[in-house]
């Protein structure tokens, strides 16, 4: 099945001369959760803004479910829901009015029952008559999501959806995203919280300085780029790592009771077996041993740092 969103050779240079995107190519599969990671100013929001029609691109093509975002903008845009990063709502409108407005704006006939369901799902129903200005930050974020969902989009962009929200709301949002995915909605989220991508995404893309530097299945990425750690609890503390172990990347905890070996699990000879042999030979005994995978966050930081 063709991808639901296809971005091909998209560049953006702003009037100031700043190049935000360089020849970006990206295909999003139907029904997946795709996490776009990148440091501040990497071009995440610009890319989303181009796909959604908020910013004109300098070159390249974008299609949503086969519809070109310029030639066939009505069909393309009506498929997309966007929850932007900033809490930008008409402060003086009621929750009910502003969500219905969004639905009308996207050309959908009024459907109070559906809007009620969206508001109930987001715990906003009790606040339906409240003006947006009176809502808390978390509630405003829910309202932005309700507006985006009001017109039943097939592709949902969540730009930093959980920035500045409390743990409970974050959990709620993750649950909501999974529900949407079960209904067949494709979700593209940008985030700073790597654990969010780790917990939810099927695939991860990393963007840095306007270029996509990696797109990978999340599990494969963690496997491929992951470094592992072997942590050993020593029977008797060491004051220093003996010289004979200098060929291993070992770290000693400040109290001398824990020895950590970091290795590449993709390497042909990770060196675990030889290290254990050498430790025994050197008379260093341990009472417990544990291995840890590196997190997506570490992978991400390594990738971005590696860029010139």
């Amino acid at each position, binding site marked *: 099945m063709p991808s639901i969103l296809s971005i091909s050779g998209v560049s953006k240079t702003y009037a100031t001369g700043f190049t935000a995107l360089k020849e970006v190519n990206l295909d999003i599969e139907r029904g997946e959760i795709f996490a776009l990671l990148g440091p501040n100013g990497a071009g995440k929001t610009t890319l989303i803004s181009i796909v959604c029609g908020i910013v004109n691109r300098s070159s390249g093509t974008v299609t949503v479910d086969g519809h070109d975002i310029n030639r066939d903008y009505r069909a393309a845009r009506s498929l997309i829901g966007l929850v932007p990063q900033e809490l*930008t709502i008409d402060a003086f409108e009621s929750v009910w009015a502003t969500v*219905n407005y969004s639905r009308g704006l996207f050309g959908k006939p009024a459907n109070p029952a559906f809007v009620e369901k969206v508001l109930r799902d987001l715990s906003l129903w009790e606040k339906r008559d409240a003006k947006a200005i009176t809502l808390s930050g978390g509630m405003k974020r829910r309202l932005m999501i309700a507006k985006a969902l009001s017109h039943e989009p097939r592709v949902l962009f969540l730009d930093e959806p959980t920035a500045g929200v409390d743990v409970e709301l974050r959990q709620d949002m993750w649950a909501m995203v999974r529900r949407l995915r079960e209904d067949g909605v494709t979700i593209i989220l940008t985030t700073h919280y790597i654990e969010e991508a780790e917990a939810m995404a099927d695939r991860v893309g990393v963007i840095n300085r306007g270029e996509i530097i990696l797109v990978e299945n999340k599990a494969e990425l963690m496997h491929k780029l992951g470094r592992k750690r072997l942590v050993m609890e020593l029977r008797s503390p060491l004051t220093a790592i003996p010289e004979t172990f200098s060929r291993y990347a070992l770290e000693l905890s400040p109290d001398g009771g824990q020895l950590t070996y970091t290795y590449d699990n993709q390497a042909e000879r990770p060196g675990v077996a030889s290290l254990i042999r050498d430790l025994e030979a050197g008379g260093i005994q341990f009472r417990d041993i544990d291995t840890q995978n590196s997190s997506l966050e570490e992978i991400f930081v390594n990738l971005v740092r590696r860029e010139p």
Partner: protein
Amino acid sequence: MNLRAVWAIYRMEMARAFRTVLQSIVSPVISTSLYFVVFGSAIGSRITEIDGISYGAFIVPGLIMLSLLTQSISNASFAIYFPKFVGSIYELLSAPVSYLEIVIAYVGGAATKSILLGLIILATASLFVPLTIQHPFWMVGFLVLTAVTFSLFGFIIGIWAKSFEQLQLVPLLIITPLTFLGGSFYSIDMLPGIWRTVTLFNPVVYLISGFRWSFFGKSDVSVGVSLGMTIVFLLVCIAIVAWIFRTGYRLRN
């Protein structure tokens, strides 16, 4: 055509007016009454008639035009500037709506509000002076044409403006002086020769003159010229809006 979107925007704009009913309706009624007290009674009592029309009645079309111009501009410019300012414009730009639909909805909303306002002022004025409208069809025609034209103009200002100060700049420094000097409170025949010629370069003169003709059948310049000038200004505004949308000027950049 995404008529649902046009309706959604239009309804939202009208709701804004009714939410601020004090500012939208009560305030023009009060200021019109004040104009009548000051110009109609205090000063007007010393000016008996202009072109055979009592001074109180003479200023009514000018007063309506004064409010129509300033309100059309401020309604439309604020309507599009505010979402730009708070950032909620993202939704409009990402929606499946054409530029034409955006203009119809916003300009339609702004024009409707100022036409309602014009009619309220007319009703208030009729409490102070006896009024007859000789050409009601043309009166409504000028009212609608002017409201639409200046709402378009306001829309352009709203897109152009980068700050609240800029938003106020054109109405304050250009429109208000032009309106006051455009014959709202006097006939341009009352001006000395050279100023009469200078005044003819003021587009507002044509609007007020044409509108006044629809009331009293008398005008400073011919009705055809008035209508022509209004339509020319309308076309200029349409051309600018078309250019803004073709280039994405200050919207999609």
